[in-house]
């Protein structure tokens, strides 16, 4: 007698992508639900997606630009080029907020959804995948706002910034951002099941991580001898390359870019394998 589905006690380390694809309708519905629910009963609706980074940018501009006068240049060569501070902080902020939202959302997957996960089976990866997609939609809204501000500075103010060839990397950058956010999120989610301490650690950790990423300052602030260490943070190259793409000057290093991909894929692989290990029995401990 042959059966279609066989459940055994042994753990299998394989991620079943085909199964995940069969649930694409569910992924899509979760994305839609997230989006609808997030803005229902708010007066401003999706506008909230842009208000938040806009306010952050204004504060950063005042704090780090006008008061602390931190450099906004990513390389010594770009020191001369004038980049509008507002645009500089906005670009970093929208990338960073996607990263931090997705990491936090993915990390809380099991805890926030344990009711539904405890009642019905579907591939558990559906949750983090749909979460990162719906955050990508918010990112899209913010990116559109960024483009408007950017166009204003280019066309009206005539600042010296311009698009560079690195803009072609944009899809790759977004994909990388998505994969690394999920990777780190999955690692935290898997560990949180056993140790709730991680949740508190994560809040604090994300804040530190923010300081370790060139969001509020330019890369040229980092001394050259620490650069290798600094570049282990994969978010850095994404943000720096993003800025190069839209400002026409900045920093790019193929070696470090490859390193950031290596870290991204390693995090993803580790995240997936940990997730795979805990997903079958996490309901017993949560």
């Amino acid at each position, binding site marked *: *007698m042959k*059966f*279609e*589905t*066989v*459940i*055994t*006690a042994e*753990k299998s380390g394989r991620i079943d992508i085909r199964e995940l694809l069969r*649930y694409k*309708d*569910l992924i899509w*519905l*979760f994305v839609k*639900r997230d989006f*609808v*629910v997030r803005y*229902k*009963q708010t007066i401003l609706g999706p506008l909230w997606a842009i208000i938040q980074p806009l306010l952050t940018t204004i504060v950063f501009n005042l704090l780090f630009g006008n008061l602390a006068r931190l450099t906004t240049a990513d390389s010594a060569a770009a020191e001369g080029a004038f980049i509008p501070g507002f645009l500089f902080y906005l670009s970093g902020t929208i990338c960073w907020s996607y990263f931090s939202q997705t990491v936090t959302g993915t990390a809380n997957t099991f805890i926030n959804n344990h*009711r*539904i*996960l*405890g*009642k*019905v*089976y*579907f591939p558990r990866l559906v949750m983090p995948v749909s979460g990162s997609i719906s955050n990508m939609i918010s990112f899209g809204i913010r990116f559109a706002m960024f483009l408007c501000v950017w166009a204003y500075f280019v066309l009206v103010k005539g600042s010296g910034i311009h698009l560079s060839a690195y803009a072609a990397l944009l899809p790759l950058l977004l994909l990388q951002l998505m994969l690394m956010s999920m990777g780190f999120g999955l690692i935290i989610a898997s560990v949180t*099941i*056993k*140790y*709730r*301490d991680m949740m508190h650690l994560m809040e604090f950790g994300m804040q530190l991580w923010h300081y370790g990423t060139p969001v509020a300052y330019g890369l040229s602030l980092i001394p050259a001898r620490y650069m290798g260490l600094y570049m282990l943070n994969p978010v850095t190259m994404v943000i720096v390359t993003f800025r190069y793409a839209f400002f026409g000057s900045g920093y790019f290093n193929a070696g470090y870019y490859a390193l950031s991909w290596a870290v991204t894929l390693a995090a993803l692989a580790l995240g997936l394998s940990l997730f795979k290990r805990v997903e*079958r*029995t996490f*309901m*017993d*401990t*949560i």
Partner: protein
Amino acid sequence: MEDTIIRFENVSKQYRLGMIGGTTLREELQRFGARLRHQEDPTAKIGQSLYTEGLKSGDTFWALRDIDLEIARGETLGIIGRNGAGKSTLLKLLCRITAPTTGTISYNGRIASMLEVGTGFHGELTGRENIYLNGAILGMSRAETDAKIDDIIEFSECGAFIDTPVKRYSSGMYVKLAFSVAAFLDAEIMIMDEVLAVGDAAFQQKCLRRMKDLAGQEHRTVLYVSHILPTVSELCSRCIVLDRGRVTYDGATQDAIDYYLEHELAGRTFIDYTDLSRPVNYLRRPVRLLRAELTDRDSSVFYDSEPLLLRMDIRFQEDCDGASFRLEIRTAEGRPVATSPLEGFLSGRAGEEKTILLRYDIPGLVPGRYETKFTFYYRREDDSTDNLECVDGIAFEKKLLRERQLRWDTGHWGNIRLDAPKLLELGPAKN
């Protein structure tokens, strides 16, 4: 068996007691420290089940043990058993919510589970949106839901409100909608865990009929877990009885129910608490219950106004002055019914052991199954209670010997029948 659709082979599920509930790094370290000093685990929790007594944390507890089961296509299988017998665990394994510790479960086709209605419903979404969402959660594609949506809406009787957010629905409508989605899913295997306990009687009947039709005409396989035995006998052709993780009976529904009523409900009259692990805040309290017994009977069934005789052996862990005891009675569903305290009678020196014999007269308790809690406590200065020992007690059943009696509506009237009033006057109206 030919045309087997589900097969359980040697399936067991083990829970580690201390692991139920999350752990923190600190607890882990405490546990490790306690293990080094060979002490009782301070983070141990008492499981919900009646069967976890005598277990320490780190001890393992088998929720299911060596289950071998074959279910044929088109069969309607009822699963009955006491709380904690492993019914829900069995379904959870089949639904892949958690994985078995040993053994293999195989099945063909899709499973639609209705483990709890409204799972995955979101209050802000409309009924229609929730149908799509719930359908997708249960594994339906958008096209499949499209094809079924009219049937679903019609069956749910929610047509007029289908484009209203479900947070405005009454709980009855919620249930109807959720059931309808699952009932129209093209799944070969349908699983229901007491969903019918909610919703109005007419809808319950409609659901039972629908499930029966699905099994009879379309050859779907239905697994049904319920405490409501009449619905089990109405729906199911075959029934298994679970007790402490094992299948103790497997056969025709009526025989299984008879077996269950005879063997399982009779229950135990004795519990040994000596090895029970207590929550950390009860570890060093003065009074510890060692054993409890309902004396002079071999079943825990009480008839009419028979008194309940409770004997308890206790040990004083510290000197104790004027402790009290209370018996709490709850329904099988856990709803409190009544409590009887006996105050300030218990004193002793550390290390001393005593036996207590109590007699409870409970003529007002209406027929039914009851669970108890045994609690020793101090009455504080401000008349509040400070619990010293608090354990699940012995469950019992109250029955009436009289053949005909007023049918008691416990849902509205409660579980206590107060003494009839003294009729002082009844005559022609005088005004």
